[in-house]
């Protein structure tokens, strides 16, 4: 279907953009790469009266490493993330998640900030942000603030961003010490949204015990989720003492509303989810153990 009519705005900077968002209120939507928003318009799932195009906001693009943090500008395309040697070296989980997003034609347009702000429960980047405790920077006419990933995803396609707030950058901690990262998903066809997926980050202490474990789940709820009970079960243990399959079952046992749709029943999805968590855990633990 053709998208519904809208008024088009092309601000030249962040300040002008958030000014427009504040002025236009709930009838306005920012558009970055448009790879999620335009399908929603075409399917008439959304019909904003105003679109605020972010393509002139050049300052929102790029990858910068500083003081133990990698900052990825919200306007950075997924294709640019995939090409970034810095991301591959310092935030390997982001690098590994990126090829799973759509297809290369989608990644040429789709952006990091767009994916996070769209907050699809079955998308890869939100789960990665959760697993790594990323921090999201948002700007509004009232100034800038930082939102921890754990507080960002508030509901179905909903985030902590106010109407007049723009996601400008995401900060990821640089990998350190003995650590391992893996993302696994199951989809009917490559590039489809996953029926279930998991992103795992594990860090060991000097004695080889799990110092930190982050597990982000996608496709398994109405928002991207963490698996706190499974994370707690792993933390403080030696890798050899952790049974991956059991960890997967623990992660899924916490979930109270696994979605059902035409691709999978809730039971099947939970079964797949547990297996996927186990698979991601094994790969992350292997990397942490052997580097």
């Amino acid at each position: 279907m053709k998208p519904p009519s809208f008024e088009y705005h092309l601000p030249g900077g962040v300040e002008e953009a958030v000014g427009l968002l504040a002025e236009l209120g709930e009838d306005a939507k920012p558009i970055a790469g448009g790879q999620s928003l335009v399908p929603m318009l075409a399917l008439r799932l959304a019909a904003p009266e105003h679109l605020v195009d972010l393509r002139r906001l050049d300052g929102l693009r790029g990858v910068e490493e500083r003081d133990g943090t990698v900052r990825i500008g919200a306007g950075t395309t997924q294709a640019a993330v995939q090409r970034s040697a810095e991301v591959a070296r310092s935030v390997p989980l982001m690098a590994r998640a990126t090829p799973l997003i759509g297809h290369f034609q989608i990644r040429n347009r789709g952006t990091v900030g767009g994916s996070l702000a769209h907050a699809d429960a079955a998308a890869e980047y939100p789960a990665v942000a959760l697993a790594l405790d990323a921090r999201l920077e948002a700007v509004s006419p009232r100034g800038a603030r930082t939102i921890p990933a754990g507080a960002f995803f508030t509901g179905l396609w909903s985030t902590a961003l106010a109407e007049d707030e723009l996601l400008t950058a995401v900060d990821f901690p640089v990998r350190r010490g003995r650590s391992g990262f893996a993302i696994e998903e199951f989809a009917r066809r490559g590039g489809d949204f996953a029926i279930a997926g998991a992103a795992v980050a594990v860090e060991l202490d000097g004695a080889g015990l799990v110092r930190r474990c982050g597990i982000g789940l996608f496709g398994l709820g109405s928002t991207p989720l963490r698996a706190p009970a499974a994370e707690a079960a792993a933390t403080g243990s030696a890798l050899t003492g952790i049974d991956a399959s059991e960890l997967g079952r623990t992660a899924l046992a916490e979930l109270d509303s696994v979605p059902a749709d035409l691709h999978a029943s809730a039971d099947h999805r939970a079964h797949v989810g547990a297996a996927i968590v186990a698979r991601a855990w094994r790969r992350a633990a292997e990397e942490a153990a052997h580097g």
Partner: protein
Amino acid sequence: MADITVRMRVNGGPRSATVPPRLTLADFLRERCGLTGTHLGCEHGVCGACTVLLDGQAVRACLVFAVQADGAEVTTVEGIASPAGELSPVQEAFRDHHGLQCGFCTPGFVVSVTAFLRDNPDPTDEQIRDGLSGNLCRCTGYQGILKAVRAAARRRQAGRP
């Protein structure tokens, strides 16, 4: 809703038109430029039939508004052959290896593969399959398409542009 004047270069030539913001780049190319080689299958970013090069990058023209492409360089399937009409290595390979049946999806495949082989000149079969995954062929002629991409890669390596 206010119309907006857009200017871009399409297949090397300047084009401009005053369009409603909701006009997609695909409809701009088909209806305003008369370039009907860009096909529309699903119109929501799934099938890949409308793939064009936007500033050199393969994108789905149904997921870009013409107003977002203001100032850009666009190449459609009509701009893939040489100006004299000589087929590109990718087009030749599709013809030679039965890379098309009904032909509806072919423009999207040709444009996608052109960008894919530019960026991956010596692809493995796995990379080719991944590179093709964003384009759907409902005749399911994928084996012929796969063979065509392999052949096009060899032809390009042999020095054809």
